């Protein structure tokens, strides 16, 4: 029975250098007028020669070292030949039989059984990005494509894993962690939607007792973590269904269609490319100085795993919270900034992981662009601590802060939504509630604690959440006792 899922990933990350890989054009290409970010080198004009950007090499080594790879002291560039208009040279400069880094690994932890899994990294190599094709109007009916070479020559590190994933969820967990690592390394911003981090996957099924792999399908065009999980699950199900019907899997490349939630055939193996790799004659072999590698290894910044442990230790928050807060560099930075201003670190993580992340996700805003800064969040939490607003009111204030970017204190002042501190005003409401709910009052007198909670709720309702629940609770108890 072939039911063991086998998945391997190939991830491309755009390295955040200032200049492109082999020329001095800017890497800042998004949103630029087409073909304004190119030069003879990245356009592949005759007579131009590529020269490797030092920073590209440094960033790639940093990535490979962080993924526990061995660095090849001599690696080579190859030409990968294929005809497609996104490549003006008709070949891509890549690495083939001697990649920069090889034989690494990364550990992931699976939340459901606390198991740690070691995912082997086959290789980390350098290659240049290609241009972009734009289809005007309807793809099916349009007879031409438009080409923009601004992205040509953007440096990429390709990270290839061994087929070590046993489920789509494992692959997703790996990607989230990899993104956090490259963000902490400062080599890539890890934005899957914008394509600065891209992922292809090989999926196959095999008999759990067998060590040979089944025929695989390659899945492309997955533009978010969610899409990766959905696409891989679809593919696993598709293959299981075919095998159950006695149909063999064919090696092919499939395209994930996000809007229809299906994978579609792009090309079968018969049409697959023969890239005719050969050593790039325009670039000399890449000799890496071991001293440079050691220097990079020593100066590696704190990585997500170490940061998570530090969060648990320094802020006394649960492992679960620390894991989420270090799942992206910017989120960890946000938390640390806020925690430096506010000592209730668990209250802080609750608000960040709850309200803040919910609003960010709903509005598709990245944490870097959050209208609520760490300072503003802390300002609001202090209003709760001072008894000026209740926790419940704070949620409404939080929403206004998110929409307007204003300080909590300003919102409170403008709308007058402070907590009721006037006791007489509260007693008046409490008396009304007691009068209107004789049944609950009776229940409570007979010892039903739950009835009191209901009455507190009624007071909160009347005051639109502006009463302090603790005070109302005690006040109700005393009033009812007196009856």
């Amino acid at each position, binding site marked *: 029975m072939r039911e063991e899922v086998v998945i391997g990933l190939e991830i491309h990350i755009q390295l955040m*250098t*200032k*200049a492109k890989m*082999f020329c*001095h*054009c*800017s890497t800042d290409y998004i949103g630029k*007028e*087409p*073909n*304004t*970010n*190119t*030069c*003879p080198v990245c*356009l592949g004009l005759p007579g131009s020669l590529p*020269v*490797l*950007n*030092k*920073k*590209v*090499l440094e960033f790639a080594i940093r990535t490979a070292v962080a993924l526990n790879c061995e660095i090849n002291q001599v690696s*080579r560039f190859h030409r990968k030949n294929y*005809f*497609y*208009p996104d490549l003006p040279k008709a070949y891509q400069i890549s690495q083939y039989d001697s990649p920069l880094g090889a034989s690494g690994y990364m550990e992931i932890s699976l939340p459901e059984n606390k198991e740690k899994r070691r995912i082997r990294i086959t290789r980390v190599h350098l290659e240049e990005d290609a241009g972009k*094709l*734009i*289809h005007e109007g309807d*793809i099916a009916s*349009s*007879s*031409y*494509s*438009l*080409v*923009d*070479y601004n992205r040509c020559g953007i440096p990429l590190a390709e990270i290839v894993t061994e087929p070590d994933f046993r489920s789509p969820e494992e692959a997703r967990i790996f990607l989230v962690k990899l993104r956090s690592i490259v963000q902490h390394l400062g080599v890539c911003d890890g934005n899957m939607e914008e394509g600065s981090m891209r992922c292809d996957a090989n999926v196959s099924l095999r008999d759990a007792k067998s060590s040979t792999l089944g025929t695989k399908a390659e899945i492309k065009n997955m533009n978010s973590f969610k899409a990766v999980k959905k696409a891989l699950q679809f593919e696993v199900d598709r293959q299981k269904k075919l095998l159950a019907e006695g149909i063999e899997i064919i090696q092919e490349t499939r395209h994930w269609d996000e809007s229809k939630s299906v994978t579609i055939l792009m090309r079968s193996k018969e049409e697959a490319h*023969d890239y*005719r790799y050969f*050593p790039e*004659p325009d*670039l*000399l*072999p*890449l*000799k890496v100085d071991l001293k440079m590698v050691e220097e990079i290894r020593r100066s590696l910044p704190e990585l997500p795993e170490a940061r998570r442990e530090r969060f648990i230790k320094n802020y006394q928050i649960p492992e679960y919270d620390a894991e989420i807060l270090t799942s992206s560099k910017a989120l960890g930075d946000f938390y640390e900034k806020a925690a430096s201003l506010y000592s209730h670190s668990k209250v802080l993580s609750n608000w960040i992981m709850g309200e803040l992340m919910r609003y960010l996700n709903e509005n598709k805003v990245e944490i870097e662009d959050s209208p609520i800064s760490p300072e503003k969040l802390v300002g609001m939490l202090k209003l709760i601590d001072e008894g000026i607003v209740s926790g419940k009111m704070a949620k409404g204030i939080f929403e206004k802060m998110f929409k307007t970017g204003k300080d909590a204190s300003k919102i409170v002042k403008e709308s007058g939504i402070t907590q009721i501190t006037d006791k007489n005003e509260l007693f008046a409401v409490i008396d009304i509630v007691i009068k209107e709910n004789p049944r609950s009052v009776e229940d409570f007198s007979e010892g039903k604690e739950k009835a009191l909670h209901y009455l507190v709720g009624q007071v909160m309702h009347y005051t639109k959440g502006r009463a302090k629940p603790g005070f109302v609770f005690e006040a109700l108890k005393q009033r009812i006792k007196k009856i």
Partner: protein
Amino acid sequence: MTEKIITKKEVEYVAKLAKLEFNEEEKEEFTSQLNSILDYFKKLNELDTERVEPTAYVISMPNLLNEDKVKPSLPQDEVLFNSKYVKKGYFKVPKIM
């Protein structure tokens, strides 16, 4: 008579990869030509290369590296200057799916 290293099938395969089309006569001709070229290169086998490293590059010098500095790119009109088919700042090509 030269030994057949390259068959007609291989000529057809390479032609397909290079997006070239040949008639039967041409295919035969190229098969024979490629074989005689390879046959000529066999002369190299007479050399003793036991102690010679495989050579992909003939000059031995360290790789040169650029500083990570941005310099101006070409203006768009110069980039597009040599192309016959241009639209809204893009190169225009036949649709390829």
